[in-house]
């Protein structure tokens, strides 16, 4: 079939993808900057959780002569201050966002665009991170002034940490996106998301450093994705992981990103056929 209608030429594929990521990230940053006050209150709310953990563990450590299971008060402070950055970095387009996207009819608009939906979500939230990191810096300085963290990372640890926080972002994006697909089968997919979060709390190092958990929990955590989204990125900077452990951690993240991507693709191809878009 030929239709005599002029079309605009297109740019090359990989260059286009790069351009798409950069432009989407810029758009996300522009959107976030519209709400400066909201952003700061959001950040303040975000540090409430780790500060509670930090105060509890610091108190326990002091009662036990300055350390719990070998972790000193300064190391607890370092762990939970880095936690705040890792937590902000691994906020992703998860199940509740998918529920909202479908309910509010935004998915129909997104589906009209010639792009893989995961690219848009990854790019948009990646842009958002840049605003978050800038806002996080003064908060990190404030927490450091109060809690005196013990932190002296090597250059290798810093490099691995930078990769690890983006790795954590990708691992979490894949798995939470896959859980988000449940919204195509059930109206309230967020219930399953809550179960995911509860498991993550215990097996990721989010609630307590995995070092404080029983041995069998630590072993189990090594074979599940959760640890690679919290515990590993934090420990890559504040822990004393060997070079081998640092590199194995990055490999584990790459593996879970691959597994998560396959799961997401399978779930998405099936989910999209169920989209009804009634009233949207």
């Amino acid at each position: 079939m030929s239709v005599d209608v002029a079309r605009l030429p297109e740019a090359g594929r990989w260059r286009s993808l790069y351009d798409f990521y950069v432009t989407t990230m810029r758009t996300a940053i522009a959107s976030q900057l519209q709400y400066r006050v909201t952003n700061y209150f959001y950040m303040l709310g975000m540090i409430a959780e780790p500060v509670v953990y930090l105060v509890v563990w610091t108190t326990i450590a002091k009662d036990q002569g300055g350390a719990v299971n070998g972790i000193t008060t300064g190391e607890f402070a370092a762990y939970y201050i880095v936690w705040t950055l890792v937590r902000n970095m691994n906020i992703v387009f998860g199940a509740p966002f998918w529920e909202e996207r479908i309910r509010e009819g935004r998915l129909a608009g997104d589906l009209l665009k010639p792009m893989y939906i995961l690219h848009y979500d990854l790019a948009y939230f990646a842009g958002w991170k840049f605003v978050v990191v800038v806002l996080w810096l003064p908060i990190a300085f404030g927490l450091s002034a109060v809690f005196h963290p013990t932190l002296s990372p090597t250059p290798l640890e810093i490099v691995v940490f930078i990769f690890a926080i983006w790795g954590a972002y990708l691992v979490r994006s894949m798995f939470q996106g896959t859980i988000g697909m449940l919204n195509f089968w059930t109206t309230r997919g967020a219930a399953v998301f809550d179960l995911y979060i509860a498991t993550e709390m215990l097996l990721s190092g989010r609630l307590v450093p995995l070092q404080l958990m029983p041995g069998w929990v630590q072993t189990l955590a090594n074979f599940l994705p959760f640890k690679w989204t919290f515990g590993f990125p934090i420990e890559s900077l504040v822990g004393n992981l060997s070079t081998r452990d640092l590199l194995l951690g990055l490999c584990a993240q790459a593996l879970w990103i691959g597994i998560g991507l396959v799961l997401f693709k399978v779930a998405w191809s099936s989910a999209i056929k169920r989209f009804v878009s009634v009233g949207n």
Partner: protein
Amino acid sequence: MPDPVVHVAELTKIYKVPEREAGLRAAAKALFKRQTRDVRAVEAISFDIGPGEIVGFLGPNGAGKTTTLKMLAGLLYPTSGEARVLGHIPSKREREYLRRMTMVMGNRNQLQWDIPALDSFELNRAIYRLQRDDYLAMRDELVELLDVGDLVRKPVRNLSLGERMKVEIVGALLHRPQVLFLDEPTIGLDVTMQKRIRTFIDEYNRRHGATVLLTSHYMADVEALCKRVIVIHHGRILFDGALAALADEFAAYKTIGVVLENGGAPLDAYGEVVLNEGDRVSIRVPKAETSRVAARLLAEHEVLDLTIEEPPIEDVIESVFAQPAAQ
């Protein structure tokens, strides 16, 4: 005869809808046993649309218009039947296809809410992989055609409904789509804004030869833009043809207007008098009797002028929609 741009054959969409009685008992029962009902939103419809045509897709709420448009845009999987647009099967959602079509939903915002429309246009440039020079030329052309030069720098949330619709349309057409699915693009807009959008659609179609399938509850949109209409009701096509022929097929009456030499004569015997202003009278008569009544009027009165008019398109459409669903 050129190949059709849109080809639809026996296209059907059935939704499975959960339902239950009201009340706590029914809610508890539904926990264990869900009841669903099949809703046949679109049932075995067929039509073709040629290159450059603007076709009005008419029907009351729930007739199946939007469901059809969404199947053609690749948003919904058909239950059965065939749909092809520009040679593509929409449900496959091939990027090559999505880059050649657009869908504007009058009640949905597709631009970024918090930032100026210009930023969203830029994002669309990246999504549709447009060369910058071509993008800028097209953007400027659309901005000029819709006269939104001073609006595209404001955050979208600060625009009025009409302003937002205009910038939405700019955003949706930046990639110069060859097929436009317009789902009530003028809904909620004032008369001036409706006219502006209509003029724009006509101009875009003329300049770029695009094919347009348009749904609207405003007959002014349809009359201004569409030579051809497809009427859908209860998921089935009732009419597909020239707008002018719609009245022939569905209007139950015509209106005879007469100006009499000696005004004031009672004309109730000829039909329903709908207007009586001195020597000017309008009589509504059954369509089949129009010629006979007109002849009688001419024979029995001193007639200075006589016109026979089709009923307003709104009335014709209303009579189409009043038809019961096929059993």
